[in-house]
C-alpha cells in the first residue's frame, strides 16, 4: 500500500483547511462534524465517543505537530479518512508538549477487511516522520495541494 492507496479513502469534502478549535475535545468534535458533512455517516456521538476513548488509551499526537486520531466503530461502513490543518495549532497532548497543526483522522468499521485501516495508519505515520514533507503539507491550504505535497514526499 502506498500514499495513493491511502488517499482513495478521503475526498475534497473530507479536508478542513483551518480548524478553529482551541482544545483537543473541540478539535475532535469539529473534525467529526466535517466527517458527517462530507459523508453519509450520521452518528456523531458514537464516533466522537470512540475517538475520545482512543485518546484516553494514549494520545494520537505522535509526530512533531501531527496527530492521527483513529479507531473502529459500528457507525461507519468503510474506512474513511479526514485530513485537517490548523494554522494556530491545537494542544493535543503531544509528547513534546507543542501544539498540533496537522491531523489525519482515520475511522474504520469493526471488520476492517484487508487490514486497510492499520496499513493506512502505518503509511501515514511513516510519511510524517519526514520533516521536510511535514512542513510542506502543513503549508498547504487546499485539498489538491495537500494531496500533491503528500504524493511528492
Amino acid at each position, binding site marked *: 500500500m502506498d500514499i495513493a492507496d491511502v488517499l482513495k479513502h478521503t475526498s475534497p469534502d473530507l479536508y478542513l483547511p483551518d480548524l478553529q478549535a482551541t482544545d483537543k475535545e473541540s478539535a475532535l468534535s469539529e473534525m467529526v462534524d466535517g466527517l458527517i458533512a462530507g459523508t453519509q455517516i450520521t452518528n456523531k456521538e458514537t464516533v466522537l465517543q*470512540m475517538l475520545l476513548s482512543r485518546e484516553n488509551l*494514549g494520545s494520537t499526537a505522535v509526530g512533531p505537530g501531527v496527530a492521527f486520531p483513529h479507531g*473502529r466503530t459500528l457507525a461507519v*461502513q468503510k474506512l474513511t479518512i479526514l485530513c485537517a490543518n490548523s494554522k494556530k495549532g491545537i494542544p493535543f497532548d503531544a509528547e513534546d508538549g507543542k501544539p498540533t497543526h496537522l491531523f489525519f483522522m482515520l475511522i474504520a468499521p469493526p471488520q476492517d477487511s484487508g487490514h486497510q485501516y492499520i496499513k493506512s495508519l502505518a503509511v501515514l505515520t511513516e510519511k510524517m516522520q519526514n520533516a521536510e514533507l511535514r512542513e510542506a503539507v502543513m503549508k498547504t491550504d487546499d485539498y489538491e495541494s495537500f494531496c500533491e505535497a503528500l504524493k511528492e514526499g
Partner: protein
Amino acid sequence: MNPQLQLLVAIQDLELMIRDAEDAKKAQEFEEMGFGMGGLEELKKAREDLAAKLEPRHRNYYRRLTQRFGHAVVPVIKNLCTGCFANIPASFVSQTHRDRVLTCENCGRILYWP
C-alpha cells in the same frame, strides 16, 4: 437514536478497542507507530461505567450475545442483518422502529442502522 442502543454501540466499540489493546501483536503494531497504549485500565473502567447505565435486561442480553457470537450488536446493511445475513422485515426499517432496541428475528443479535 434510542439511548440504550447508543450505549450498546458505545460499549461494543470500546470492547473492540480493549481487545486490540490486549492483543499483543496488534498492540505492538500500534506502539511501533508511536501510539501510546497505557490507558487500558481507564478504558475498562469506562466500559463498566457505561454498562452500569444499561437497563438490566439489555445488559444481560448483551452479555449473553457476546458470549455466544463475540459481537452482540451488528449493523444492518441493505436490509440484511450482517451477523447472519437474514432479511430484516420491512416493518423494522421505519424510523419509529429504529428508535427501539430491535433484535434479528433469526439470530437474535441487536440491530443497528449506521
